[in-house]
């Protein structure tokens, strides 16, 4: 069965600094990969997705993610973080067949001035 690991529970970055959130997955074939963001008191919002093709994927809010098959990773990046980016971020993996998406446990991002 597929699994997702987000190694960092909590990350703090300064406003304007770059950001990279890590996501590693376990699956034998190429998975479908997603990043979601959750602001306090709200549901999850899809940031970006990777199905196939170009391994660098652009998403909303200035985020991008890169699929690296050799590392089984799909890390989320942003060149310059804004205070409004403080939220929880979830990576998810989907596979072919009758299995729902599997979500990582999330990484909480704090942004300091």
């Amino acid at each position, binding site marked *: 069965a597929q699994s997702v690991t987000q190694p960092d529970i909590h990350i703090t970055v300064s406003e304007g600094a770059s950001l990279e959130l890590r996501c590693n997955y376990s699956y034998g074939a190429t998975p479908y990969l997603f990043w979601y963001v959750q602001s306090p*008191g709200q549901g999850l919002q899809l940031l970006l997705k990777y199905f196939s093709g170009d391994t660098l994927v652009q998403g909303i809010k200035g985020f991008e993610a890169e699929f690296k098959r050799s590392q089984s990773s799909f890390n989320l990046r942003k060149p310059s973080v804004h205070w409004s980016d403080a939220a929880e971020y979830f990576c998810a993996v989907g596979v072919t067949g009758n299995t729902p*998406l599997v979500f990582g*446990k999330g990484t909480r991002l704090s942004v300091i001035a």
Partner: protein
Amino acid sequence: DAGITQSPRHKVTETGTPVTLRCHQTENHRYMYWYRQDPGHGLRLIHYSYGVKDTDKGEVSDGYSVSRSKTEDFLLTLESATSSQTSVYFCAISEGGFNQPQHFGDGTRLSIL
């Protein structure tokens, strides 16, 4: 935003009482999901549906039941609520298959005293 409405948004009830949470969608999506979110555990899948009257168990289904008599409605029932079921519950929908992006409601905060 996807047309997903969860009701109620907040509920406080007592141990042993039955509780039903409703998820209503206006997107005509085939797939619907119920998750619970707890600190340290991320999102955990309770039950999901792949069509009217077609449902299956997720990883934390004990103590929960679901029903889907119409495409637009997916009900989650706690037959006899326990304090361990205090959580935030999210409904999600997707179309085209299990490996497609899910879109989330805003959640129901349930407290069981």
